[in-house]
């Protein structure tokens, strides 16, 4: 019943703090929306300039969505690249090809380089084939009696199928599930941590401890009180991401909500715990670069499998590693609850440890 009194009080305090409420409910939606449009927008087509190019090669390049600008002569490649806002420049001199790349953005440059090389290789192969046919024809006409046929080799057709996603999968489809979990984690951590901190600094926690409330009732009161808002936030964020932003969701929506609720529980207990080691709101903020931001690196946005051994060890200590993994499994890969049960159990383990630690940390305030 004392826990209930605490929950009721937190509820009243929360609904009066419109700003905190807005931060918790609206801010994640805002950021998700921004990221969604940032990552799904089409990237601009690359522009290259060419000199002395074979018209076939130009055709090949154009087929690959490259904007080709032809020049008769160029004296200063560098200057032309800059002035005409080109991403690369191709100069054909006899048998040599000189490629100059601007390399403003390494990843798109790599893609452009690949496309150009493919075009040139394809064109070269075509030429080879026609040369060879011509050569064979010559031999045939000179030696008419020879039984001579040439098998033409058809290029093998590669048909691609995908286990997860499709050819239209964008980076955001992989990023989205992680972001949903990450924002739930981040905002629940922030709000709950600062709320309990306020209680510590204004002395009301001291006052609370002078009443016959048990330490664990305080911890549970906080978990449930803020948990209520965390549940609402989670549901809003998940529905918004899936129904409005249309983030890829192959598995069940309920599983997504379950994972996020467990993540919120971990964030809640961690926020309350860390607030014990902060003396002001600013000190609480100092935990963000230490505790919250590294979680993003290990949540699955960067592939953990390829990391150095010691980094993988760190990854396994991060709740978001399991959360991100489970969310990707459900939303992107479409796996079921059974496949993510170990992730969920580990997350619940984190929460349990933090809750027990919370009850212990309150001993600082009252021994019994």
């Amino acid at each position, binding site marked *: 019943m*004392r826990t209930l009194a605490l929950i009721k009080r937190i509820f*009243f305090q929360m609904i009066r703090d419109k700003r905190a409420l807005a931060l918790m409910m609206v801010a994640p939606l805002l950021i998700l929306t921004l990221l969604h449009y940032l990552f799904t927008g089409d990237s601009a087509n690359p522009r290259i300039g060419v000199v002395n190019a074979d018209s076939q090669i130009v055709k090949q390049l154009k087929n690959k969505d490259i904007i080709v600008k032809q020049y008769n002569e160029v004296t200063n490649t560098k200057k032309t690249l800059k002035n005409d806002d080109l991403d690369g420049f191709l100069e054909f001199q006899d048998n040599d090809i000189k490629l100059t790349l601007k390399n403003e953005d390494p990843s798109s440059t790599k893609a452009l380089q690949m496309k150009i090389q493919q075009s040139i290789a394809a064109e070269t192969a075509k030429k080879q084939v026609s040369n060879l046919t011509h050569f064979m024809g010559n031999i045939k006409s000179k030696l008419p009696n020879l039984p001579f046929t040439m098998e033409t080799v058809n290029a093998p057709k590669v048909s691609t199928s995908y286990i997860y996603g499709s050819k239209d999968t964008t980076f955001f489809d992989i990023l989205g599930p992680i972001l949903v979990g990450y924002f739930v984690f981040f905002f629940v951590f922030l709000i709950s941590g600062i709320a309990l901190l306020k209680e510590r600094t*204004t002395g009301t926690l001291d006052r609370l401890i*002078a009443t*016959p409330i048990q330490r664990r009732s305080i911890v549970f009161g906080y978990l449930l009180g803020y948990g209520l808002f965390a549940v609402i936030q989670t549901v809003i964020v998940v529905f918004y991401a899936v129904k409005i932003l249309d983030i890829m969701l192959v598995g069940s929506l309920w599983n997504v909500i379950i994972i996020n609720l467990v993540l919120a529980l971990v964030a809640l207990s961690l926020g309350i715990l860390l607030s014990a080691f902060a003396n002001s709101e600013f000190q609480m903020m100092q935990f963000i670069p230490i505790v919250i931001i590294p979680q993003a690196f290990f949540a699955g946005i960067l592939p953990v499998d390829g990391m150095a051994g010691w980094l993988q060890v760190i990854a396994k200590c991060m709740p978001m590693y399991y959360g991100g993994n489970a969310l990707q499994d459900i939303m992107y890969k479409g796996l079921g609850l059974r496949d993510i049960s170990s992730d969920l159990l580990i997350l619940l383990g984190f929460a349990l440890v933090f809750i027990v630690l919370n009850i212990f940390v309150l001993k600082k305030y009252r*021994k*019994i």
Partner: protein
Amino acid sequence: MASIVVNQVSKSFGKKEVLKKISLTVEPGQIYGLIGPSGSGKTTLVKIIVGMDQASEGTVQVLDTTVPNLSLLQNIGYMAQADALYTDLTGKENLAFFASLFKLSKNEQKKRIAYAADLVNLTPDLKKRVEAYSGGMKRRLSLAVALIQDPQVLILDEPTVGIDPELRLSIWQELYRLKDEGKTILVTTHVMDEAEKCDRLAMVRDGVILTSGTPAELKEQFGITSLEEVFLKAGGKMG
């Protein structure tokens, strides 16, 4: 059977010794005053008596129960030196919250909230949020919170700071009435005219009780008429 027994209590924070072998006894129906300058260790002693802090040495018993004890807290009304109130809630919500922590029934809650609010003259302001309260109003609400569960023992840390003389008088009248009901009241103060109103006094400085007794005894002992002088003399002796 004494209500509060403090036996040889010492407390150190690291190397700094804040309380040195403090002993005192408060009888039921007594108003016991702890007077001393700020930094003398009064608040630390009070917190140890409530059970919010632990003595490094010595024992404390309240109502024959060794402190700390969870169910004992049901019978202790505590008012902290700093107002510990939820400023985003109304006065009434603050009182109701603490009342439910003491597990008062709905009916009792209503009665006690009305009583406590009336006692500190806050009835017309109960629906206002505490952030709109003046310093004195917050102090009064803190006192009302301390009284909410009708406790046997009241421990008030500087209860009348920032309260105007008229209200201070009415609060003391109420403390006398509570005393007549047999309640035990421990008050800390650094206002000498309040010390005069206590049944017994202990003068604290640098974590030591300099002297104790009834106000009259103290004055007699030092041959002076005002407690202020007693305090200065007793303190001077130490130096």
